[in-house]
């Protein structure tokens, strides 16, 4: 596919406000197919804002700058259209949807995103395989979406959705927080699998995820800007030295 040669995501001079408070203040980022970008930074540096603004959360206002996804101006796409175009966000705090069963929800989501109806059999086979990979019990399917889920279950549910929806750009917002080491390993395997032919933005605080999912590029965010970009080593530097040395 020739699209794989181009840029998957292009962000230029992005400024974002929430309730008229500027959060992101001049951010540039290019993600190509097959690249894994890690974004690190202190709480409040604007990492989650970036994730939400990419997916199109209505509370985040782009005051300046542009985002292109597949060469399309993102501001022209609604949230569901972004999902259909191949964007996926693994939420830091996934929402509970009482009364909606996981199985039905996944089925509906897969047909919404893919735009065509897959057969029940095809869906079940695919789902079974992905659930086995993530060691998710079948009983999961009849539970309500995220209702009464533990922190770890919620994160695995996000990864399951990602695997089923097969995105071109996966944005993972602190998917590793609150996971024990076994769950982290499963989640990491899921991420590696899903991002084989896609781009990925990993937002994380911890090196331990980056040991399992090798980033190609690491960015450090401070006060709504990327202040340093480097290779995988940069994450190790931050782990050892903190962020102070990066401040202007």
């Amino acid at each position, binding site marked *: 596919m020739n699209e794989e040669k181009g840029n998957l995501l292009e962000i230029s001079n992005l400024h974002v406000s929430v309730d008229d408070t500027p959060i992101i203040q001049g951010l540039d980022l290019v993600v190509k197919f097959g690249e894994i970008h890690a974004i690190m930074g202190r709480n409040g540096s604007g990492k989650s804002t970036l994730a939400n603004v990419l*997916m*199109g*959360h*209505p*509370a985040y206002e782009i005051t300046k700058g542009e985002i292109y996804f597949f060469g399309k101006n993102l501001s022209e796409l*609604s*949230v*569901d259209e*972004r*999902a*259909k175009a191949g964007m*996926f*966000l693994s*939420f830091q705090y*996934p*929402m*509970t*949807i*009482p*009364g*909606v069963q996981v199985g*039905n*929800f996944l*089925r*509906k*989501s897969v*047909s*919404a*995103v893919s735009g065509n*109806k897959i057969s029940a059999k095809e869906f079940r086979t695919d789902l079974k395989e992905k659930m086995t990979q993530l060691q998710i019990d079948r009983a999961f399917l009849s539970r*309500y979406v995220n209702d009464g889920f533990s922190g770890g279950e919620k994160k695995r549910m996000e990864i399951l*959705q990602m695997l089923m*929806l097969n995105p071109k750009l996966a944005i993972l917002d602190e998917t590793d927080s609150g996971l024990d080491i076994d769950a982290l390993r499963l989640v990491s395997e899921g991420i590696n699998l899903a991002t084989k032919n896609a781009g990925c933005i990993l937002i994380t605080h911890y090196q331990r995820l980056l040991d399992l999912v090798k980033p190609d590029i690491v960015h450090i965010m401070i006060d709504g800007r990327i202040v340093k970009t480097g290779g995988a080593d940069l994450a190790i530097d931050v782990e050892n030295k903190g962020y102070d040395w990066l401040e202007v």
Partner: protein
Amino acid sequence: MKEEIKPEEIVSEYKYGFSDAEKAVTKFDKGLSEKVVRDISELKNEPKWMTDLRVKAYHHFLKRPMPNWGNNEMLNGIDFDSIIYFLKSSGKTEKDWDEVPEEIKNTFDRLGIPEAEQKWLGGVTAQYESEAVYHSIREDLESQGVIFLDMDSGLKEHEELVKKYFCSVVPYTDNKFAALNTAVWSGGSFIYVPKGVHVEMPVQAYFRINAKNMGQFERTLIIADEGSSINYVEGCTAPTYSTESLHSAVVELIAHKDAKIRYSTVQNWSNNVYNLVTKRGVAHENSTIEWIDGNIGSKLTMKYPAVVLKGKGSHAEIISVAYASEGMHQDAGSKIHHLASNTTSNILSKSISKNGGRSSYRGLVQVSKMADNCKSNVICDALLLDEDSQSDTYPTMEVSNPTFDIQHEASVAKVSEDQLFYLMSRGHSEQEAMGMVVNGFFEPFTRELPMEYAVELNRLLEIEMEGSIG
């Protein structure tokens, strides 16, 4: 539900708002008088005791004040003189759909009733205006002695049973609208299930108002004898006229020892119908009465399905939902009377208000002095879809026994921007996302309905969500 909704199936109008040309066999003039009451009784060739009961009820109706709860402004808007109290559209009740007058048959075809009968029902009665136009019961049920008739035929063929139970659960003095119904009742279902007989397939009644300014006053009486069980389902629709119609039914259930009655309703009256219904059941020893009550339509609904737990160890289950949109007020709820020891009740009430609609939960749990070790669990959840809509809760407890164990939970929630964002990020449009949240909220109710009803209800709610965004 698994059922997918196709875009071409989505229509923003009230789906059942069509009407037929009115062709009456017998039509009374507008308005109510003792003569109208006597004429209805005479036309039906009723025994004297029924005529007398009707007349007594009529006089009680006249002197009984309007209820002072619910929605007084709307109630006082009812013009009793402009209502038609009796309208007969067909010469007799048919047992074969082909014999039903063409226009009426078309209506029920469009509502999917004959199809449903073939697929999953044990019996059907279809009421059009004042009387049943079609009626059938599966032969195997009939041969087991199950009686399933329209109420008029019930009175003719089983007068002693009717005389014994009619008004025994809901006396005409109960409230103004029970008095009105007793005075002018016509149609409804009469069911008797003999000892030990289990009616596995649901039996269904469908009530349709077609004429303008029509008053529909069906009367239903269900008696489940010892150790028997029955599952009864009713549906209601009407065309959308600019003038108002009145639906004022009375339903009486009697569950004898060890019997079980489940009564499911999905009313989807158009938003010009006053729906003022009295529903009550008496549960004898170790019996169970379940009301599954869905209120999706109407202008004003005031309905509080009740169970009198009269026998030891009897159980009541009331699951209700209400959906109120613009110009609508759903004043619904439940009443439980724990009169005997070891009786238990569960109440789950869910309401959604949208576009300035108003839903109220009005509930009563009463425990008598003699009733030891009773338990009740009450949950009321409200979901508001916008700032203009309203939800109120009026729970009342009258407990005269110290061993009573009650759990009560109430919640009011809003659909959050974050929930919609989450669902939309999985490829669902804003409307689909709203539909999912709403269907999910009603799920504890819909899962209790027969599959066909559940699918229909979910589809209906998805349609209702159109235009609710932004």
